[in-house]
Every structure is written in structure tokens, then in C-alpha cells.
């Protein structure tokens, strides 16, 4: 990975390409998982069984805050990747720290929302609508939490090893994961919250 002449068949470069492509394929299968949860939600969302419907429990301005936070974190994650390709280790860590804090505040807001719903008696046990809602949004929140943990691990690794072809490859996968979760959130925001209220 130093200044030796690299041919097209450099094993590290091949590993890079294959890994990133493999991760993309994983993301697409994850998309199918979310697709199934969306289908479940779409089928069950009217079955409120006497419990409140989306109109009664969703606070749109609160969810807009979450949406903007997550979108901004996707943007700062992109800025971190630009720095990574320029091999500016400190900038990478700084931007990922910003991304991490934004992601963390997103999770905190979501947990607050869930805790409030459970507190007032609208837990997942109440109706098919609430079960599918908690499953869909909770699965997304779980992905975000895993992404946050992943970020901490990589920040430690980059602080020690700097940006190499191997750490860059891992960062690329992490950034794809993070952008992917923002795309999933667009649909949660639209299908669950906006359509639930309108």
C-alpha cells in the first residue's frame, strides 16, 4: 500500500472492490427486510382495535426534528468520506463525531417517543397497528444504534491506524450503511407519519 506500482490485480484493491460490492448486496437484502415490514404495516395500520390511531398519537413537528437530524447526519457522514479520500485523518474523526452525536440524538428522540407512547398506555400490545408500528420503526432504530456502535469502533481504529486501504474500505461500507438508513427513514416519515396524520 506504499508507493509500489499497483497493477489492476492488486489483491488489496480487488478485496476493496469485492467487499464494497458485497456490502451493497447486503444492503439490498436489508431493503427487502424493511420492505416486508412496510408491507405488514400497510396491511395492519387500520386495525386499531379500539386503541388510538396514528392521527391521535403522532406529533409531526417532533418527527420533522428527527428527520432533519438524521438527514444532516447523512450529510456530515458524506463530508467525512470526502476527508477520508483525501487521507485527512483528523477531519474524518471530527466529521464522524458530528455524525455520531446527531445519530445519538436521533436515537434519544426516538426512545423518548416510544417511552411516552408506552407510558400513556399505547404499547405494542394494544393493537395490530401499534405492533407493526413499533416493529417497523424499532427495527430502523436498532439499525441506527448498531451503526452508532460501529462508528465508535472505527473511530478508535482510525485514530490508531490512520487511513489505509483497509480502513477506507470499512469506512466506505459504514457510510453506505448510514446513507441507506436515511433512505429507509424517508419512507418511514412518509408512509407512517405523514400518511398516518393526513
Amino acid at each position: 500500500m506504499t508507493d509500489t506500482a499497483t497493477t489492476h490485480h492488486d489483491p488489496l484493491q480487488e478485496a476493496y472492490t469485492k467487499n464494497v460490492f458485497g456490502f451493497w448486496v447486503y444492503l439490498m437484502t436489508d431493503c427487502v427486510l424493511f420492505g416486508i415490514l412496510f408491507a405488514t404495516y400497510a396491511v395492519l395500520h387500520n386495525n386499531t382495535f379500539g386503541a388510538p390511531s396514528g392521527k391521535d398519537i403522532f406529533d409531526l413537528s417532533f418527527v420533522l426534528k428527527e428527520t432533519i437530524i438524521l438527514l444532516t447526519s447523512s450529510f456530515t457522514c458524506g463530508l467525512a468520506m470526502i476527508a477520508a479520500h483525501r487521507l485527512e485523518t483528523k477531519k474524518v474523526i471530527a466529521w464522524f463525531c458530528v455524525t455520531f452525536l446527531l445519530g445519538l440524538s436521533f436515537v434519544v428522540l426516538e426512545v423518548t417517543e416510544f417511552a411516552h407512547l408506552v407510558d400513556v398506555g399505547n404499547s405494542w400490545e394494544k393493537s395490530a397497528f401499534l405492533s407493526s408500528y413499533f416493529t417497523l420503526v424499532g427495527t430502523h432504530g436498532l439499525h441506527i444504534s448498531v451503526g452508532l456502535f460501529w462508528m465508535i469502533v472505527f473511530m478508535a481504529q482510525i485514530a490508531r491506524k490512520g487511513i489505509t486501504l483497509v480502513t477506507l474500505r470499512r469506512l466506505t461500507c459504514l457510510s453506505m450503511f448510514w446513507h441507506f438508513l436515511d433512505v429507509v427513514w424517508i419512507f418511514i416519515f412518509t408512509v407512517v407519519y405523514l400518511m398516518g396524520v393526513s
Partner: protein
Amino acid sequence: MDIPKESLHGTFNSYLLGFILSLVLTLIAYFAVAEHLFTEKVLIITIVGLAFTQTVVQLFCFFHLGKETKPRWNLLIFLSMAFVIAIIIGGSLWIMYNLDSRVM
């Protein structure tokens, strides 16, 4: 260190463009619903259209799907995934609503 040619990464401008467009599309969808700008049917078509537009924006600006060189494996896998999802969601809704209207 040589970064592989296949490594797709954006410029600052492409990320900024993606961010601003996504923000605008999100806000339009939010205010359309909050202010009840349209009747319910038109409203739902509008916000779903905005969501798909935002997805395309992010695929180009954040995932750089348009920059991929041939053979476009990433795009191909993406399209087959979209096909599978369309069958799952469309099929589930079709079957379940049909069943619902027959049973009720």
C-alpha cells in the same frame, strides 16, 4: 496509497446538493400535510411522489449510483431488489385488501 478506480465517492458539491434538495423535499411534504394543502387522495400521491424523488436524489448524490461504470452491477442489483419489493408490497396489499372486502 492507490484508491481503486471503482471506489465511488462524491465531491463536496454533490453532497451539498443532495442535502439541500432532500431538505427542501422533506419540508414541502411536511407543510403539504401540516397545512392540508390538498384533498386526501392528491395529498397522498404528492407525498409518495416526493419520497421517491428524494430517494432518487440520494441515490445519485449520496450513493453515486450514476457515476458507476459498465458493467453496472450495483444498479442491476438495486433494480432486482426494487422488483422484489414491488412484488412483496403490491402483492401483500392486493391479497389482503381483496380478502378483507370479501370477508367483511
